[in-house]
Structures are given as C-alpha cells and as structure tokens.
C-alpha cells in the first residue's frame, strides 16, 4: 500500500476491484464502513456479487480478465469529459513529457516487437531528452507526441460500447462507476483503490494496476490521505517477506539482483543507479551504492572490504534474462533439473497453478523438506491421489515449526507497518521458530563446509553469522542488523548542517546516514530506523493521533523512515499548501514540512533553487502516466486471457498479451475458445480458510462453517446443464478436474458480449485431499501455469472450464 489500512477511512470514494475485501480482508471493512459513515461511497466491481458487493453503494459486474478494458474506458471518460486534476497532472506526472519519435502503437502492438523472442525492444519507447539530458516537455499539453495526447489517443478507442462488448458490463453500469469515481478528480475529493489477487493473477496483472495508477494520477489521488494505490496482501507478513527479498529478482530493500554480465561491484552499482539531469529531481535511487555496500557489510561483516569489492563476488548471479520465479522453478523441477526443495511455510501441491504438474514435479526430487505447523498435501504428496508411493524416490523430511504466536519477531502489514510481536506461548513438542531452524541449519552447513570443503565455500564461510544469544536464535540481533550499525567512529551532518558524532557499534538512526565506503552496515535500507539507539521502534504502542487522520505515528514503525503515506508532498500544491485543507497530510510552513514524515526535507517545487519534485523515487521526479519500463508496453492495453471464451480480441488483432511465456511441455495444456471448455472460471478464497486452508482445515469450527469445495454458477448455466443447487458436479479444465458441490446463485449472471452470451463460474482454492476427508480438492488442479510477463504471477483468475453433473450425483 502507498497508504495504510486506517487511512481508508479518509476516502470519499473507495473502489474495490480485483478483491473481495469483506471476505478476505475482513478488518479492512472496519475502515471502509467508517469512510461510509463519513459520507464516502463504496463501489464494487467483480464478476460475482460478493460479500463486498453486498455492502457497496454501487456494484457492477465484469467478465474475469477484462479489467484493463473497464479501466481504459474510465481513462477515456475522464479525458473526454475533462474530469481530471489539471494542475496535478501538469506538474506531478509525465503528462507534458515528449515521447521519442520511435514510439508507436498499431493494432495492439507497441513499437519494437520481436515475435520470435516474444519481447519488445524497449529502447524505442524512450522519452525525448534535450542536449543537456533534460526531458522535453510541452506544458500546454498540446504537442501530439506529449504523453497526455498519446494517452488520450490510446484510450479514445475504449468507448463505453467497445468496453461493454469486452467486459459484459452493461453500459449504464460502466458510466455510473466512471461518474462516481471521477468525482475524486476534484481538488478536495479523494478516492482509493483496494485490490488483491483479482488484479495480479492475470497475464496482464501488472498492467491492470498500471491502468488504475494512471486513473489515480489523473484524479490527483496519489500522496493524499484517503488516496493511493493499495494492494491488500494475502498474508499478514507478505509485505515483510517481499521487503526482505523473498523473490529471486531482488536483494533486501528492492535492490535489483546481481546478474552475470555485471561482473564487478562497480558495474553492478552503475547499472542499478539511475541518473537525472534535472536539478529539481531528488532521484533518491542515486543512493543505491550506499545501500548495496551496507547490505554487503551486513552479509559479510569484516570479511567485506573495499579490496574484495565487499564480497560482491560471493553473491549468486542470475544469467542475463534468467527468470527464477515460481512457474519456471516448478517447470525446472518437473524436468528433473532441481534435486532438493525446501517447502517452507507453503503448500505448493495446492497453491501452485496447474497443481497436478506441481505434484508430479515433487516426485522428481531427491529430497523435500516440509517446514510447516501441520502436515499438508505437499509433504504427503507421495501418498496423495494418483500417486504410487512405491514408485516415488523423493525422501521427505517434516520439520514442525512454531506458529505466529509461539515466537518473537516482526510482521510488516500491507500498510508497511512493521509491528513487533511478543511470544505468547511455547511451541508444542519439537516445533521450533523458523529463525531457530534456519540458524541451526546454517550452523550445520558451515560446520560441514569447514570440515569437508566444497565447490565454493567462500560465501558460506565468510558469512557474518552471529545472530544467536547463548546458541539460540535471537530475533533482536537480526532486527538490529537489518536496521544497521556504524562500523567506525564517524561524524556526519544532519539536514540543518549540525555535526552528529556516531560511535562504532551505534545503530544507524536513518538511511540518510548510510555510507558507500563500508563504514556502515545495513541488512535492508528501507528498514533503517526501525531499531535505533532509542530502542525497538517496531514495538511502540502509543495511540497518539494528533492529526485525527489515523496516522498513529508512534504505533509500530513504518518504512520508509516512518512515513505513513508515500509521496505525501504530492498532496500539496507547488507552494506546499494542501490541495485538500480538510485532510492535510503535510504542509510547508515556509521553513519546514509539518505533519507526516515528508518525502524529503526539500522545499516544495515553487522554490526553483532548492525545491524538489514530489515523486522522489522516479528519476524524473514525477509520476509515470507513460511507463516505458515494463515488458509489455508503456500504456496498459486490453488483451484476452490465455484461455478465453471469445474468438478474437475486440480491441485489436493481437489476441493475447504478446510477451507472455507459454510453456509447451506435456503437462502445459491450454485451450482457448474451445467448445469442450465453454465457461470462464475464476478462483478465490473464503473467510473461513487461510490460503490453501492448511492452517484452518484442521479447525473444526471453521470446517463446520465451510466444509467442502463448491462451484458457484448462475441459475441460467445451471438450467442449461440440468444442475440443481447442492448437486454434485465435475469441473474440468484442460489440466485437471475437481468434484464439487454446485452452488446455484443469483450472484453470478451471464455476460452479454455483443451477440455472445458467456457464463462464468468461480471456486475457492482452499481445499485439499488431506483433511477434511470429504472436503474435496484444490481448484488449482484446474488453473493454468502461464504468468504475467513482468512478474510471472500465474493467471489463476481467468481460465476456461466445463461443468457437468457428476456421476452418482443427486
């Protein structure tokens, strides 16, 4: 989230699209209802009338996988009706920037497409720069090559008629949503978006969110209290695990992963550090080398020296262009290229798209370590349906771990608040906290490397590994190292120029003090300031809220530097005065900013000498309406899901996202517009079960409330197939089948796409064969293993199935 949970209450219009917040983020609705109490409106857009829809002031249906068409229509509506925030768009976005001559868009394809590589030459999309390297701009927004005019042209194709033909949303419903939301383009009105996997799990996932980001910029809703782009994370600490680089393409703090072609630390830093010619751009990422150096000092301690490039050579490097995300990993595992696997706090046998392939892949392993609080379909895959234990060589180890309340540590919620939690009880039996398991494992690995050597012992043996107290893992020691230390006595200056003396061993109070010469260490620069000389800031529990806006600045700690709303200087005009005086998040008093921790101390942009643009993480200092960095285009464009019900894309000749990777093994089946699989299907969670249900399916009250897998379908579809509510049915996709109970409902309705009527069904993915015994299977046996070209997140939210009455069913 650019904002945070409590901030939802400050919103005038809340759009919930790509999520069912009421069911899956129940507490969020506390703040949504407060917004409604204050006169705010809630809009819900979803293929199915959900629990969220039930609380909405307005609900509109759309076919799964057509969000860009829906949102593109909104962009078009706002530009046609002149309902956008001109001053904001002109000064705080790249709308006036001139796009280079090589950019083009023709019939669904952007310039530079190579069909063999299924990728674009993105250099053709670059913005135009003058001789000094400054971006060229037209502040009248009239130049036909400026971003604003290209945006207008691109989305002029998204007429309500065209959009409705794609999404199946009735035109009056579209217009109503557009009207309601674009009200927040007013200076003193603010709107927010709450989304989750309903937007990300598509082959156009990133562009779904880009489309909404463009709307938020046109409305001037970024940086505002009650605004922002707000991803609701599916687990309490997903934000934290991403921050700490659970993913393959980053190091902690979103530092791009080293690549093989970046052979030296200097080259790596150069490649990852953006440059700007604009003196008014803070270009915060210019500090990259300070963060990367401090990270290496945290990894390797005294062993990291300027002479050995701080141990950069010990880091693993990705081959150039290599993608090690989930779908590729399991494809490699299926093809026998991965021998061992730690399934740590996860259940891929039920959570992975095309789970039959995942289960078969597990059988190709030599060993599997399952770290979990319960047995699950992953650890016991070898005795699951269709498996013959005699034929499976995989050796499986189960390591029982402590659950969340049985250990101490931090969790970072969707709003970036890192909250320290105390241990409430001892874990049962042999179960241990994850930190203890990791610590002991690494101790053993180091011991073995020391004794027996190995191919490349340097990274293992040079690792700084001092996180235990009395030989037991100590979460405080880890938290302090994540925050970072001064490694020698040093005197630095504060923003006013005053001397600040620090001693070797002091905790670094803020990332502004991190150094690129090896004199500081920091395990994650965005967490610098979380655990300082003043104590564990994450453990703070003051309920002070002097602004009344719900910032609670002394409750827990929020990255970066306890800034509760990102890009908050964009909530003010060029003179630093709030656009919305009712909800001032920061304000320039002539000498300094007051309110939330501002995005940097510099004066507002009206000060042409010292002022800075508000979007400090962007090299140009402004937000990107035109985004030339993504793999599939600088503007979001509607493409059909890999599996879809229509014979062509109504928008262009380009049927599907041209840059997606299509796996072509024997387990990678997909059929589009195929009469054998006539219905659109989507997947979702239910309140009662958590993710694959592995923590909840053992709990009798929750199983009582949500006992068996079901498929929701319209009355019209049910009638067509002779299915009655409660009947046993079979749902089949090209990849698998799941027996389940039919839930025939008025809440799904057929979509009219021009002359075509399309039916959609939906299923929860929280069940699995291990328990309860009559609960049924995971709907991920049906989902396709195809991913977004930027993130490789699987397209679990739009694919094709058939539904038939099950034999032996009622």
């Amino acid at each position, binding site marked *: 989230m650019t904002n945070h949970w409590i901030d939802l209450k400050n919103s005038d219009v809340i759009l919930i699209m790509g999520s069912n917040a*009421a*069911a899956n983020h*129940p*507490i969020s*609705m*506390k703040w949504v*209802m407060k917004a409604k109490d204050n006169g705010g409106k809630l809009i819900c857009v979803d293929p199915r*009338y959900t*629990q*969220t*829809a*039930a*609380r909405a002031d307005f*609900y509109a249906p759309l076919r799964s996988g057509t969000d860009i068409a829906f949102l593109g229509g909104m962009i078009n509506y706002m530009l046609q009706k002149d309902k956008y925030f001109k001053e904001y768009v002109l000064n705080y976005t790249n709308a006036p920037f001139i796009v280079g001559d090589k950019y083009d868009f023709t019939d669904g394809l952007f310039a530079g497409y190579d069909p063999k590589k299924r990728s674009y030459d993105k250099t053709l999309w670059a913005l135009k720069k003058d001789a000094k390297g400054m971006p060229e701009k037209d502040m009248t927004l009239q130049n036909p090559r400026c971003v604003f005019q290209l945006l207008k042209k691109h989305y002029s194709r998204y007429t309500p008629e065209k959009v409705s033909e794609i999404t199946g949303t009735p035109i009056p419903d579209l217009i109503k949503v557009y009207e309601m939301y674009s009200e927040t383009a007013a200076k003193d009105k603010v709107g927010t978006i709450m989304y989750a996997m309903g937007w990300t799990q598509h082959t156009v996932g990133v562009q779904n969110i880009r489309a909404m980001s463009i709307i938020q910029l046109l409305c001037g809703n970024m940086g505002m209290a009650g605004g922002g782009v707000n991803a609701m994370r599916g687990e309490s600490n997903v934000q934290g695990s991403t921050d700490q680089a659970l993913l393959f393409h980053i190091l902690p703090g979103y530092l791009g992963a080293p690549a093989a072609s970046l052979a030296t630390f200097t080259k790596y830093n150069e490649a990852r550090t953006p440059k700007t010619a604009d003196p008014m751009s803070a270009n915060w990422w210019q500090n990259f080398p300070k963060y990367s150096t401090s990270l290496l000092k945290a990894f390797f301690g005294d062993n990291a020296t300027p002479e050995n490039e701080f141990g950069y050579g010990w880091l693993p490097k990705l081959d150039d262009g290599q993608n090690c995300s989930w779908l590729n990993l399991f494809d490699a595992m299926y093809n026998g290229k991965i021998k061992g696997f730690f399934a740590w706090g996860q259940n891929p046998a039920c959570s992975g798209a095309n789970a039959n392939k995942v289960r078969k892949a597990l059988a190709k392993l030599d060993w599997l370590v399952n770290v979990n609080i319960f047995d699950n379909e992953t650890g016991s895959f070898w005795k699951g349906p269709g498996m013959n234990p005699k034929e499976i060589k995989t050796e499986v180890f189960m390591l029982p771990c402590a659950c969340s309340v049985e250990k101490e540590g931090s969790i970072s919620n969707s709003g970036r608040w890192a909250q320290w939690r105390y241990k409430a009880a001892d874990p049962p039996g042999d179960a241990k906290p994850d930190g203890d398991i990791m610590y002991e494992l690494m101790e053993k690995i180091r011991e073995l490397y020391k004794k027996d050597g190995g191919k490349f012992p340097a990274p293992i043996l040079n690792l700084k590994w001092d996180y235990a107290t009395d030989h037991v893992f100590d979460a405080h020691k880890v938290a302090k190292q994540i925050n970072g230390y001064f490694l020698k006595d040093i005197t630095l200056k504060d923003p006013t120029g005053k001397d600040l003396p620090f001693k070797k061993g002091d905790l670094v109070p803020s990332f502004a003090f991190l150094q690129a010469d090896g004199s500081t260490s920091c395990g994650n620069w965005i967490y610098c300031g979380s655990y300082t000389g003043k104590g564990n800031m994450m453990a703070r529990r003051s309920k002070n809220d002097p602004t009344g806006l719900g910032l609670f600045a002394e409750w827990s700690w929020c990255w970066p530097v306890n800034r509760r709303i990102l890009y908050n200087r964009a909530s003010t005009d060029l003179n630093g005065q709030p656009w919305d005086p009712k909800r001032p998040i920061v304000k320039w008093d002539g000498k300094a900013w007051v309110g939330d921790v501002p995005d940097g101390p510099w004066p507002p942009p009206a000060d042409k000498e010292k002022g800075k643009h508000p979007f400090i993480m962007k090299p140009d200092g402004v937000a990107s309406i035109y985004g030339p960095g993504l793999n599939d285009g600088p503007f979001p464009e509607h493409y059909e899901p890999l599996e879809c019900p229509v014979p062509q894309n109504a928008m262009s000749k380009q049927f599907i996202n041209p840059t997606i990777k299509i796996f072509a093994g024997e387990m990678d089946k997909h059929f589009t517009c195929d009469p054998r699989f006539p219905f659109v299907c989507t997947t979702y969670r*239910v*309140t*009662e079960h958590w993710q694959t249900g592995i923590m909840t399916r053992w*709990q*009798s*009250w*929750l*199983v*009582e*409330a*949500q*006992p*068996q*897998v*079901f498929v929701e379908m319209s009355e019209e579809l049910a009638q067509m197939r002779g299915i009655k*509510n*409660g*009947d046993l049915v079979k749902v089949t996709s090209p990849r698998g089948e799941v027996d*389940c*109970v*039919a*839930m*025939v*409902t*008025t*809440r799904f*309705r057929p979509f009219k796409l021009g002359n075509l009527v399309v039916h959609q069904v939906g299923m929860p993915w929280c069940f699995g064969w291990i328990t309860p015994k*009559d609960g049924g299977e995971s709907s991920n046996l049906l989902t396709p293993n195809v991913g977004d070209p930027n993130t490789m997140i699987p397209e679990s939210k739009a694919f094709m199935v058939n539904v038939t009455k099950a034999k032996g069913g009622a």
Partner: protein
Amino acid sequence: MAEGKSILVDTSRCTACRGCQIACKQWHGLAGTHTKQAGSYENPSDLSDQTYKIVRFSEGKNGDGKPYWYFFSESCRHCLSPGCMAVAEKDEIVVDEKTGAVLYTPATKDLDFKETLKGCPYNIPRQNPTTKVLAKCTMCFDRITNGMIPACVKSCPTGAIQFGERDAILAAAKKRVEELKKTFPKASALDADEVRVIYIVTDDPKKYWKYASAK
C-alpha cells in the same frame, strides 16, 4: 423491566465474515459439528445445542434484475416478555434482573421442549439430545457480569454488533434507522420494543430470514 442491557445487530454493516458465529462457539466451548456443503455459504444448517448463533444468508434478485445478498446473524432475542418462559413452572428459565438476559438453567431438562419452542416466535430454543437440557444464546452472561462485552460483539470487525445499556442501544438504533431511511425507505429496527437483541434491516425482514421478526 425495560432497563438493563441490549445488543444491536445492524445488518447494513454486516459483511458475513461469521466472526460472531465462531467466537460464540469458542467462548462457550461448543463443538464444530460435521456439516455438508448444500449450496449455500450458510452452515451449519440450523441452531442446535452446539450452535447458539448462525449467520443466515439469503439471496435473490431485485426489481432491476441485480442480485441482493442479505446476512442475518441469528440468535436469541432475549425478549422483555420471553415466550419460552410460558411453559416454565419453577426457575427452569430465569431473567437476570440487572441485565435482562434470559437464561436457561440445567433444570430446563424437565421442560416440555416442543411447547417451549412453540412459545418462542423466533424459533430459538434447542435441546441437547442426551441430557435434554435446553440451549441458546446466554448473552455471554459470564462475560457481561465481569466487565466484558459478549464474544460476538467483541469479534465484529465493522461494528455491526454493538452492546450497551438498553436506552443507549435504542437511541442508536433509532438514529441509524433514520439515516438508513434516506437510502432504504424500508429500513427498520425489528420488534425494538419487545426484544433486547434488536436487528436493523433495510428491506422486508422476511427476505432476510423467515423468523427475523415476530410479526
């Protein structure tokens, strides 16, 4: 007695998270029974001696063809004049003087269950098949007499269920209904003068649950 405590269930704020249903089981130590998916989110299918509270789900189509989905967190209303007490001869069923909570004692095993049930316009009392003791919501009597709010109220994320002094709850109900009427002309507080557990609905109560109102 018209003072004492009351609970307000504002269905216009309910998101059907069912925290109340589960919290009730947790506090009272009630069993999770074996259920089947029968084509609805509603489960278990009825109140029982192991289930004092159920969120009822009800759906259909409005005049414009758009769906509606109503949620009704059903439990005992703690009537001011409890109909279930009509059959009681001794202290099988008692009303707590301070709070107004209607409480079933172990002696309810001696009551005629069918007659007791007949006396309740909301179809609430259930019987333990073994001990024959009758069971229903206790208003979390042990909690509310020890400075805590009922478990269902505690668990509710949106403030759909509130607990307090009866006059304050009545005032809150009146105010909320007035607000809701601007958007939903049919909004009402059900049987507010007769019960302690007052439900606010925005449509015909029969569309929520057949026993939503005694009328």
